[in-house]
């Protein structure tokens, strides 16, 4: 009798134990023009609410968790639930307040605008 109780207790403990997720590095494209830096990251299956983008002390970290609801017996699997995570160092000249992110077809697009002060400026030469 005692033994069965023990088993039950153990199972309860296991509920709190989260299953370790695989970590994957998303493929990214990075573009830049005079106004902003653009970052595209492939994150198939990740929904908006499970993505976090953090900029702290010159480091941009992007992470997205994919949770798939599966039904039936898996016969052949090549991908599973995964956490996409990657960090980049960003130049100080990024205007953090105006960073924008959009998600479409599993591709995360990050717009990192450069601050006004850091933009290249043409210096006019005055003729005397």
């Amino acid at each position, binding site marked *: 009798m005692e033994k069965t109780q023990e088993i039950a207790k153990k199972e309860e403990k296991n509920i709190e134990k989260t299953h370790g997720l695989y970590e*994957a590095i998303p493929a990214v*494209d990075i573009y*830049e023009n005079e106004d902003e830096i653009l970052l595209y990251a492939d994150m*198939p299956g990740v929904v908006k609410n499970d993505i976090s983008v953090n900029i702290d002390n010159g480091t941009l970290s992007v992470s997205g968790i994919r949770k798939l609801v599966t039904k*039936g017996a*898996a016969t*052949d699997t090549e991908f599973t639930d*995964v956490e996409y995570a990657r960090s980049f160092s960003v130049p100080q000249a990024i205007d953090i307040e105006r960073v924008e992110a959009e998600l479409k077809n599993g591709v995360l697009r990050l717009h990192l605008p450069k601050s006004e002060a850091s933009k290249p400026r043409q210096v006019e030469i005055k003729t005397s």
Partner: protein
Amino acid sequence: MFTRLSDIDRLFRTMSLFQKRLDNLYSDYGKSSGYKWEFEQTSPRTNLYENGDSFEIRAEVSGFAKEDLNIKIQGNYLEISGSRESDAPEGYRTHKIEREAGSFSRSFTLPADVDSSKVEATLKDGILYLILPKHEAVKPKKISIS
């Protein structure tokens, strides 16, 4: 000449299958262990699930729009193909490109025939979901005892 090439291709495929098994042993997700045998391959990863009366195929197709994908079914043969054009914005300098543009084609032989008229395909968050109901003849049947 062409048959020989396909022989080589088949050999590579067998090797990559073997490698996949190995990769599954060492649980390092998405990372290939050691040497890459296969030709640089851009076809999406897929999963196959089997329910009682249907199959489900899921494929990672981030960046593909509905119009970019083609699905063909005949009996138990399924082919998914698509092409993704580079979504590089105009007037930007490129720092890094890892997301490959181009086309892919992948075919499967399903374990049983499917009813091609009832196949449902949905594209959500970069994953293609294909529900393939089995053909009436191969569906599991309940046999009542008389």
